[in-house]
C-alpha cells in the first residue's frame, strides 16, 4: 500500500460507504457535493433512504376552505397518542392569531407545504414543522396583461428541500377571448424560488408551440376535480352515484386523458361500522382540543368507540370486523380530493359528510362530518375548496430550521 495515500479521501468505496452511512441527512447533503465518487456512493447505496421517513407518505386530513367563512379548517384523523408523527396544528396558530379575525384561505398544497392567502400577504408554511415565510410581492405588472392563476406550489422533498411558487397566465374560458388574446405575448410563467428568494420569469412560448390537453369529457361538466393520485394525475367527475376517473397518459409524445374507472356507487348493504363512525374531525377554532364530532353518520346512530375502527390511510385493509350490515344508497355531491398514495377518492355527501371510496374494491367508508361548529348552517354554505394534506417533516433536514426561511417576526432570528 502506498504510504502517501493514507488520507480518508483515498478510502475504497466499501469502507467509505460504511463511514458515510452514519452521517446525519444534512451532512449527507453536503457530502454529495464533495466529489463525484462520494455522490455516486451516496446515490448508488441510497444512503439518504433511511431518512425518507421525514417525507410525506400518509394522508393526515384535508384542509378545507368554506364558502364565505373567514378561515379554512383541517378535517383530519385525530392525533392518537401512539402516533409517531407529531401533532399537527391545524389552525396554524403558530402563524395566525385567531383573535385577529383575519380572513384567510388555503390556496394550494403540495407534499406538506401550504400556500395561504392572508390580508397581510401570501405565505408558505409547513404545519408539521411549524415553519412559515412571507412570499415577497410579485412585481409582474398585470394591468393590461393576462390574468394569472394560482399561485401554485411545487415541492418535492425527495428531490430538494426547496420549493417553487408558480403564477400561470389563465386561459380565457370563451372562444372570443381565446382568439383575441391567447396565447398572451409574451407568455410567461412567473416563478418564485425559495433557493434564490426571488421571483423570476421562467419560460415564454417564443416558438409558438404549446399543447392543449382537452378535458376528458364534454358531457361531464359538473363537479370536476383535478389532482395527483397513486399512479399519476387524475381527473375525476361525476355526482350522485356515478363517478368517472381519467388518468393522464404522459408516456407518449402527446399527453392525453384515458378513462381509468367508471364507477357506480351501488345501493347495497354496507357494513354498519364503516358507515357509522365519525373517525375524522374538524379542528375547531375556539376549543382546539375538544372538537367533538357531533354529526350523525348518514342517519345511523353514531357509535362512541372511535378508536377501534380508526381509519388508517396507510393500512386500510386491516380487518374491520363486520358486525352487521345496513342498506345504504351512496350519493355524493362533489369530489373532495384524491388520496395521493392509493386509489381512493374522497367524496362529499349531504354538504359536509365525507366518505372515502376505494376505486378498486368499491369499498366505502364514512369518515365524518367536515362541518365546523363556528360555521353557520345555511343552504348557501358549503365546501368551497379542499386540499388533501400529507404532512412532511423534511424541514428537519436543515437541522436549524432553515428549510423555510423564517420571516423577521418569527421566533428564529438566524437567517
Amino acid at each position: 500500500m502506498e504510504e502517501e495515500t493514507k488520507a480518508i479521501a483515498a478510502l475504497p468505496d466499501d469502507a467509505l460507504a460504511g463511514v458515510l452511512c452514519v452521517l446525519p441527512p444534512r451532512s449527507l447533503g453536503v457530502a454529495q457535493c464533495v466529489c463525484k465518487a462520494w455522490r455516486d456512493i451516496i446515490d448508488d447505496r441510497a444512503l439518504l433512504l433511511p431518512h425518507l421517513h421525514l417525507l410525506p407518505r400518509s394522508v393526515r386530513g384535508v384542509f378545507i376552505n368554506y364558502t364565505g367563512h373567514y378561515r379554512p379548517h383541517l378535517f383530519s384523523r385525530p392525533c392518537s397518542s401512539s402516533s409517531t408523527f407529531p401533532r399537527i396544528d391545524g389552525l396554524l396558530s403558530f402563524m395566525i392569531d385567531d383573535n385577529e379575525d383575519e380572513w384567510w384561505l388555503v390556496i394550494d398544497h403540495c407534499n406538506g407545504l401550504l400556500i395561504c392567502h392572508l390580508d397581510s400577504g401570501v405565505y408558505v408554511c409547513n404545519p408539521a414543522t411549524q415553519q412559515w415565510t412571507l412570499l415577497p410581492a410579485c412585481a409582474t405588472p398585470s394591468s393590461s396583461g393576462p390574468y394569472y392563476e394560482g399561485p401554485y406550489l411545487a415541492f418535492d422533498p425527495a428531490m430538494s428541500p426547496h420549493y417553487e411558487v408558480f403564477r400561470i397566465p389563465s386561459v380565457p374560458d370563451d372562444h372570443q377571448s381565446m382568439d383575441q388574446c391567447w396565447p398572451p405575448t409574451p407568455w410567461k410563467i412567473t416563478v418564485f424560488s425559495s433557493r434564490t428568494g426571488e421571483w423570476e420569469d421562467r419560460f415564454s412560448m417564443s416558438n409558438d408551440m404549446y399543447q392543449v390537453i382537452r378535458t376528458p369529457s364534454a358531457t361531464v361538466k359538473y363537479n370536476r376535480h383535478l389532482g395527483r393520485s397513486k399512479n399519476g394525475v387524475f381527473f375525476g367527475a361525476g355526482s350522485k352515484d356515478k363517478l368517472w376517473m381519467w388518468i393522464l397518459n404522459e408516456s407518449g409524445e402527446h399527453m392525453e386523458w384515458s378513462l381509468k374507472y367508471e364507477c357506480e356507487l351501488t345501493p347495497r348493504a354496507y357494513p354498519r361500522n364503516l358507515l357509522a363512525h365519525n373517525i375524522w374531525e374538524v379542528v375547531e377554532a375556539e376549543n382546539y382540543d375538544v372538537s367533538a364530532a357531533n354529526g350523525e353518520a348518514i342517519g345511523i346512530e353514531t357509535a362512541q368507540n372511535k378508536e377501534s375502527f380508526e381509519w388508517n390511510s396507510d393500512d386500510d385493509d386491516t380487518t374491520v370486523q363486520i358486525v352487521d350490515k345496513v342498506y345504504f344508497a351512496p350519493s355524493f355531491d362533489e369530489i373532495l380530493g384524491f388520496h395521493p398514495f392509493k386509489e381512493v377518492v374522497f367524496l362529499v355527501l349531504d354538504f359536509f359528510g365525507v366518505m372515502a371510496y376505494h376505486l378498486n374494491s368499491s369499498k366505502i367508508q364514512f369518515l365524518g362530518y367536515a362541518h365546523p361548529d363556528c360555521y353557520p348552517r345555511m343552504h348557501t354554505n358549503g365546501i368551497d375548496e379542499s386540499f388533501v394534506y400529507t404532512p412532511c417533516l423534511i424541514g428537519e433536514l436543515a437541522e436549524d430550521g432553515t428549510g423555510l426561511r423564517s420571516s423577521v417576526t418569527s421566533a428564529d432570528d438566524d437567517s
Partner: protein
Amino acid sequence: MAAPESGDGNNGAARMVTLISSDNTRFEVEAAAASLSQTLQLTILDGGGGGGDGIPLPNVDSATLSKVLEYCIKHAPAAANGGAPNATAVDRAELERFDNEFVNIDQSVLYSLIMAAHNLEIEGLQSLVAKKVADMIKGKSPMEIRRTLGFPDPTPEEQAEMNAHMLEYGWAYE
C-alpha cells in the same frame, strides 16, 4: 484481563489464538477478543489460530493490528455480556472514555483503522471510526471537507461541478 466465559468453557483458562500481521509479527490474544472480528470468528470457532499455527492477516500491519487488538481486548468483556444489559454506568462511562481517547489519532492511523475494521468486520470499531470521520465532516463546507480529508485540489471541471451541486444541495449548509 479477566477471562470472559466462553460458552463452551475450556477448563476455565481463556483460550488464546495467534494472529500474524502483514509484516510477520505474531500477536497472542484471547479468542474472545479476536472473535469481535466477524471475519476471524468463524476461523476461531473452527479451532484455527491455536498452537503454533496462527492466523495470517496479510492486509493488516503490526502497528494497526496492535491498535485493533487494544480495542478488542477492551471491548471483549462487554461484548461477551451480550452488549451491555448488565454493565454498570461506570463501566459504560469507562468504555466511552476509552473510545474517545482511542480515536484521538492522526488521519493516516485512522485510515488504517477504518480499513482494518472494515476488512476484519469489527462492528463496534467500524461505527467508532465512522463516527470519528462524521465528526470531521459535520458543519464543514464541501471544500473544507476536501481539505480536511486530504483530497487534492479540485480541477477546474471538478470545481465547476461542485459549484453546480452546491446550488442543488446548498440548503444543506445554509
